């Protein structure tokens, strides 16, 4: 891939050159958002070689439960086997390639191709293939396996033959943060898919800053402290910052004493499996990301007695973010569809014994993020329309409120550069 036939407004460009000349602290050149060739490189190298977030353990609560996810042109099947182990396979029959499971989710006994009924067990072994003759050796036709890691209930897959090893560090660091929320003991109260008419990197960049929050997210900012995502300091902000920092210190001490790790860990662009986490105070009652900051579900997660444990946020490169609260969890997966379209999948998780209409009202629980997703979608789509213009030039990120955007872009440029010479 030394010279890619990438064009910008009719002129050929070289991806390696584009990567090499990326100016730190600035947004990316237009073809990174608009070109099919860059998209193909993204799918091959970013989504094809890194650990990507695909779902949660409650997607497959029982043996035989499966979910499917489409990664570029690769249909993937995630299934819980009879030993309770969660496994990922290429959702492609070893006979003539048909997808085994066409539905987004379901339950199976064995995995049976609907085309000619080739039958695999949930470990991927071919059990049955009719009419193949005496010389046919089923053991030579296993389903293609895909690496899968379960991080305290969050499911990540890697399509590379040899996945990045530093994911172990992510898992080791994050497990104590996430485990107290007991993801495996939750159920999916609701899942919403939206398709944004924009490049996936615009979706991710938008997620990595709250510069836009005050002007666009009146619902979300009810529970968010203005100081939690960075700001340009002025004499007027000093007093507020001091009080916010003191509160964070005091809450962190309290939460840590409750067995809830809270301190910030930021490896967004210092690891191949980049991530960041922090348990953040929520405003007012401090319980949940709702319109009144009170818990949306009366049946708290795990064995929490105190609902006011703020929100544990977890960001991963290249495609997810998550908010764990005392009463529910909101988790987001980003999946590129093509250079101009991106799937954003949001799941709300509650304690598996919580009863809808009794312990929680689903509209109340989803109100903040339904609104915020719709607002973010408009922001991404407007950005995408703008970066396609010849008038677009990479612009400078705020050194105060867009440091995490810079880390996303920096990570992306570094990771792609590792493969594009």
């Amino acid at each position: 891939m030394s010279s890619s036939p990438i064009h910008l407004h009719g002129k050929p460009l070289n991806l390696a050159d584009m990567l090499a000349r990326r100016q730190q602290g600035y947004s990316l050149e237009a073809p990174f958002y608009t070109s099919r060739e860059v998209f193909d490189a993204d799918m091959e190298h970013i989504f094809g070689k890194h650990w990507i977030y695909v779902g949660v353990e409650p997607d497959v609560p029982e043996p035989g439960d499966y979910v499917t996810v489409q990664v570029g042109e690769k249909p993937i099947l995630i299934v819980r086997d009879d030993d309770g182990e969660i496994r990922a396979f290429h959702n492609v029959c070893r006979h003539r390639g048909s997808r085994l499971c066409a539905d987004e989710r379901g339950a199976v006994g064995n995995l049976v191709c609907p085309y000619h009924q080739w039958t695999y067990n949930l470990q991927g072994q071919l059990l049955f293939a009719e009419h193949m003759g005496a010389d046919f050796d089923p053991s030579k036709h296993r389903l293609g396996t895909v690496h899968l890691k379960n991080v305290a209930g969050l499911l990540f897959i890697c399509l590379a033959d040899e996945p990045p090893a530093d994911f172990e560090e992510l898992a080791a660091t994050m497990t104590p943060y996430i485990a107290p929320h007991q993801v495996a003991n939750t159920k999916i109260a609701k899942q919403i898919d939206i398709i944004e008419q924009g490049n996936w990197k615009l979706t991710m960049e938008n997620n990595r800053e709250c510069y836009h929050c005050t002007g666009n997210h009146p619902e979300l900012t009810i529970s968010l402290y203005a100081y939690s995502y960075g700001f340009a300091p002025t004499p007027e902000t000093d007093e507020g910052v001091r009080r916010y920092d003191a509160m964070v210190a005091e809450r962190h001490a309290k939460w840590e004493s409750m067995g809830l790790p809270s301190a910030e860990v930021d490896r967004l662009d210092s690891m191949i499996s980049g991530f960041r986490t922090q348990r953040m105070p929520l405003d007012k009652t401090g319980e949940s990301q709702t319109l009144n900051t009170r818990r949306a579900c009366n049946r708290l997660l795990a064995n929490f007695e105190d609902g006011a444990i703020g929100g544990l946020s977890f960001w991963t490169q290249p495609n997810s973010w998550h908010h764990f609260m005392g009463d529910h969890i909101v988790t987001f997966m980003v999946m590129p569809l093509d250079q101009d379209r991106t799937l954003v999948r949001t799941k709300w998780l509650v304690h598996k014994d919580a009863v809808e209409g009794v312990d929680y009202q689903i509209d109340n629980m989803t109100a903040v993020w339904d609104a915020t997703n719709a607002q973010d979608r408009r922001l991404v789509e407007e950005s995408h329309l703008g970066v396609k213009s010849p008038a677009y030039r990479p612009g400078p990120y705020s050194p105060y409120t867009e440091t995490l955007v810079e880390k996303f872009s920096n990570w992306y440029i570094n990771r792609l550069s590792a493969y594009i010479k």
Partner: protein
Amino acid sequence: MAAAPLPDFNMAEPALWQPGTDDTLECVLVRDETHDVKTFVFRSQQPRRFRYLPGQFITLELEINGAAINRCYTLSSTPTRPDTVSITVKRVPNGPVSNWLHDHMQVGQTVKVLGPSGEFSCFLHDRPKYLFLSAGSGITPLMSMSRALTDLVLDRDVVFVHSARSPADVIFAREQQALARNNPSFRHAVICERAGADRDYAGYQGFLSLATLSNIAPDFREREVFTCGPAPYMAAVRKILEAAGFNMQQYHEESFAFETLMGGAEEAQPPAAAAGEGYTIRFAKSGDEVRCAPPQTILAAAKATGMRLASSCTQGLCGTCKTKMLSGQVDMKHAGGIRQREIDQGFILPCCSVPLSDVVLDR
């Protein structure tokens, strides 16, 4: 194929063959009986001993030209030699299964088998005297009974009258002679339509008649009669016996699992459990009803009557035939093709379900 190890007769007997568990048999010998009849001898893949009533049939589950075909064959073997079973098959013009067996079944090949099953056996009717009447490959269940009676030295008086087209078509001719030598109370006779190429043939010619029967077994009215052969032959036998004032309570016939002798081109459709035998399977949507006699599965019974149900593996693996059972009870031995929660919701796999009662399916 590696030779099977010699058995160690000092060891305890191997377990009994279990239909459903040991459902695969391996062909270990193909023997020419006549110019168009072969015997296929099968052994279990694990050391197993077969136990069945002489006269019973097994059901072969075959894949022929992409179609799943089940065919019942009475066993010609005897349970007194329990390590193998055999079927004896006559080639039939246009008979898809018999010709396929003749052309493709070889030593080393495996076949899936259901059974044994059936009620056609002199061992269910203990009498001092029997008359066995057979035509063509209908000889097989009666041969099984004769071998068993002889091996066990049971001292039952047997007259065995076999009808064939010509001397060259007489199946087990030399073994019948051997039975007669080894068993003083066993007599046999052959009736051929014509002498054919055998200029020396001096036996009975033509068809079975009251006169011939009275010659061979003047005391036939005292005997329990077991008849197996093509439908026209059995109809003729019934007519002769009824006309002779025979007590038809002493008459038994096998109504399937042979191939036509008298030039009929089509093989008889297999089992279709005899009316009254087994359970009724009703398909609620189509309104179809079939009889299913254990150990036959619901799928096998439905297929045997010509019904088309989506299915594939027939082993409970793939779940293709999964169906809601609206009422009834089955014994289901699946292999992972269905989840317990589906079973709890009332679903079954007809391919591996044997009815324990009448059953209604949502199909």
